[in-house]
């Protein structure tokens, strides 16, 4: 079966986090709002209502395009896409069929081939329907939320590459600041078009719509490819159709075949003049773009981080930014901070911490304390966690460590006193004797006793050396 080549193209809908909707001046943030409470007469498609294009949405679309290394269309245009359904109040969606605002571009992936972007267009989202036994409810809060639909070329050839592409798109959109990026809320939704073929000619594709997690993108493609190959192996044909994904069963099921598909009767939108941008405007937006993931990847190169560790940090622009700042302070201190980020902060079950609480200076200071053995690495982690506690915002790492009684005892005089007490203790005589006789395993017990007596503040390395010196 390995001779089948899988080919995938992905359409990704990204909800833009503008203050107001794409064509109407009502709140675009409908999270936790009453149904139909963020709806204007335009969204309701009352007679005589006209769309007024949201300039912020245009700005964010340009930012999104630049984040994807895309050409920006200096003149773009809107079109009407007609269909009757209660989620579409006007009977048409305003989209960009012929002249999209974002042109061709390319997405670089870690460990996979690049994926080219065909184009991305700006459009209004549809409303939300909830179906019951003999009726359905319509919520238009989401109707008119600005979306960009990013259409990839069919450059993807494995489920893993598809996932990497989806994750990188998510990172890019988050870094550009154009979306809240909450997959659970549907801020990014993926439609995957999958086909398999043994030849250079593409096979018949199926489309799985509305996937809202990276894992479901990966699994849906795995399932579809296997299903299509099985069909072909049996001598059957793949039907071109839209299929739905069931996350619980891990299967796709047929929804509607393309033969019966709607004719959208596209028409230029006469109520919105063409969107004309100047190159100066695009250049200005480009000059104001925040740093993108690739910038940080290059920046973190000297830290020699694991791929997975680095990418995990890159999922959070704030952490990547902090780490970059630590690199600026002292690059030698940065790897430890990176490990704390990935191994402590991001490993926590409940990630509701405010990542902005610890400053780069504090993180560098803490890393330096461990570097200089003022703190054990275990104690360093404990102080690190406390840096993300709101109560501690005004405290320095040193003050915190002191408060937590974690500062290591490096003063040889003080250490010697403790060691002498330990070596004099009756319960330690056996171990001391063993060490004197060259049985070095026994030294661990003695070091442990010293640590206990010092309440963890002694530097175990220094203790080890001192004991050896005394018993030799």
């Amino acid at each position: 079966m390995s001779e089948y080549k899988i080919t995938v193209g992905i359409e990704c809908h990204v909800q833009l986090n503008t203050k107001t909707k794409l064509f109407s001046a009502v709140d675009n943030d409908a999270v936790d709002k009453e149904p139909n409470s963020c709806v204007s007469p335009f969204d309701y498609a009352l007679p005589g209502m006209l769309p007024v294009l949201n300039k912020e949405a245009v700005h964010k679309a340009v930012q999104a395009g630049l984040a994807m290394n895309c050409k920006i269309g200096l003149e773009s245009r809107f079109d009407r896409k007609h269909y009757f359904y209660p989620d579409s109040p006007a009977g048409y969606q305003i989209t960009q069929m012929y002249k999209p605002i974002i042109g061709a571009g390319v997405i670089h992936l870690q460990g996979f081939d690049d994926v080219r972007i065909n184009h991305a267009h700006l459009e209004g989202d549809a409303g939300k329907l909830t179906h019951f036994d003999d009726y359905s409810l319509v919520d238009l809060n989401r109707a008119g939320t600005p979306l960009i639909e990013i259409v990839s070329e069919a450059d993807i050839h494995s489920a893993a590459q598809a996932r990497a592409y989806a994750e990188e798109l998510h990172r890019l959109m988050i870094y550009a600041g154009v979306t809240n990026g909450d997959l659970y809320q549907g801020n990014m939704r993926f439609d995957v078009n999958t086909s398999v073929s043994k030849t250079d000619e593409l096979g018949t594709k199926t489309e799985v719509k509305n996937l809202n997690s990276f894992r479901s993108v990966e699994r849906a493609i795995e399932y579809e490819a296997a299903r299509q190959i099985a069909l072909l192996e049996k001598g059957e044909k793949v039907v071109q159709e839209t299929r739905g994904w069931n996350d619980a069963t891990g299967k796709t099921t047929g929804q509607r075949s393309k033969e019966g598909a709607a004719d959208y009767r596209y028409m230029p939108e006469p109520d919105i003049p063409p969107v004309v941008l100047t190159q100066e405007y695009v250049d200005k937006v480009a000059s104001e773009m925040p740093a993108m993931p690739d910038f940080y990847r290059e920046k973190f190169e000297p830290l020699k981080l694991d791929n997975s560790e680095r990418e995990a940090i890159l999922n959070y622009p704030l952490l990547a930014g902090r780490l970059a700042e630590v690199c600026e302070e002292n690059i030698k201190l940065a790897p430890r901070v990176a490990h704390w980020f990935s191994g402590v902060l991001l490993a926590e079950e409940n990630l509701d911490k405010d990542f902005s609480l610890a400053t780069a200076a504090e993180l560098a200071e803490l890393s330096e304390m461990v570097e200089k053995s003022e703190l054990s690495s275990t104690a360093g982690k404990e102080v690190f966690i406390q840096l993300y506690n709101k109560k501690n915002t005004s405290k320095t790492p040193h003050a915190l460590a002191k408060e937590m009684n974690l500062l290591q005892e490096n003063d040889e005089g003080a250490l010697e006193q403790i060691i002498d007490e330990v070596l004099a203790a009756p319960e330690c005589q056996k171990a001391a004797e063993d060490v004197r006789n060259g049985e070095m395993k026994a030294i661990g017990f003695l070091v442990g006793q010293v640590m206990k007596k010092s309440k963890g503040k002694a530097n175990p390395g220094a203790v080890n050396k001192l004991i050896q010196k005394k018993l030799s």
Partner: protein
Amino acid sequence: MKIADKNTKAVDLVKAALAKAEEYKDYNVFISMNAEAALAKAAEIDEKIAKGEEVGKLAGVPYALKDNYSSHDGNTTAAAHILDSYHSPITATAVAKIEAEGAIMIGRANLDAFAHGGSTENSYFGPTKNSADNTRVAGGSSGGSAVATALDIVEFALGSDTGGSIRQPASFNGVYGIKPTYGAVSRYGVVAMASSTDTMGCFAKKAEDVDLVMGIMAGQDAKDSTTLPDYWNKSLDEVKPAKKKIGLIRDCFGDGIDPEVAKIVREYGDKLKAQGYEIEEFDMPILKYGLAIYYVVQPAEVASNLSRYDGVRYALRSKDVKGLDDVYVNSRNEGFMKENKRRIMIGNFVLSSGFYDAYYLKAQKARTLLINAYNEAFEKYDALLCPVAPTPAFKLGEKTSDPLTMYLEDAMTVPASMAGLPALSVPAGKTEAGLPVGAQLIGRAQSDQLLLSIAKQIEDSEAK
């Protein structure tokens, strides 16, 4: 026009208008009256005048509103069953501006449902009758507004013109009617017909009154992205033609044109000549495609704009429904008039995949050629002269069974619409049988006031 002041009470103006509306009830001019609110507003204005407060340029002037403009006063039905219970929560920008100057809407005027038609016979509320001969049509689609003005019920009336819907009924009833430059007046709040040619204009009995009303309505509106920055800001006497040369479009005086109409419009040309204008006949052969272009583009936009009337959120929902498809099919089938359905079908056909290039795209290309032809003409002429309609008002019922002859009524009005140009219907004379005939003046974009200034010169010369 008569404006309320210390000597003229707004309440009296409104009462007189309401009495006349009652007197001419048989003409079926209004879909609904606004008597109570109108009288209350008039009383407010009188009180302000008594106190010496500012009351606006149209204080107390009664007007009729074509029933496709949204406002808080009354239902906005667009003369269609599907909307007859619809009360708008918003007010159209044009209405808001007029009312802010003190004008008082006494009633909502009849039209062809959704402005589809040239006779006001396609109204769910029955046809409006011609002001000069009540066995004849009012013209349309703004028939009610034209007749309300012609019968002197009101001083002016608002209409909308997508392919001739103001100019043709103005011609049939002997009043001025203006279709302004596309984008001159905000479309916000007016039930859309064909968005790329919809314009908001008015009817009145004097060129100056048209200018006064339009000057108030015109101007950029943040709610309509196609509106132009305000240019309607001169006095008519200031506006002067550059060349004093007018092109008479010869193509519009040949076959299919009633000889009396042709004669009256040529005579209007003679009056211009007497005022020192040079009249030159010229050919615009592309005009013969105007109707074909219009009847592809317009139904496409109509079909799209009428998609929202689906019985889901507001307006008519059929009682005969078992599922979602029934909500759509039965509500729309019961709620739209025959002519609405015809245009929806033509529009969806020309937009269908496989036909889009052959019809819609080709029509848009031809539209560009039409615009080029006009631009060429305006290199030579200040304005163009031709009839408004090929005939005077025809008999009620005469053309209802033959939509194609009805569409031919629009042949001389749709080209200016497709090019977005201002065009004015000027009362030019009457036929032997006493039926009014209008002459059409067409100008370059944003030369609306020049057209009015030319018409005013003739009006003034005849008053002497």
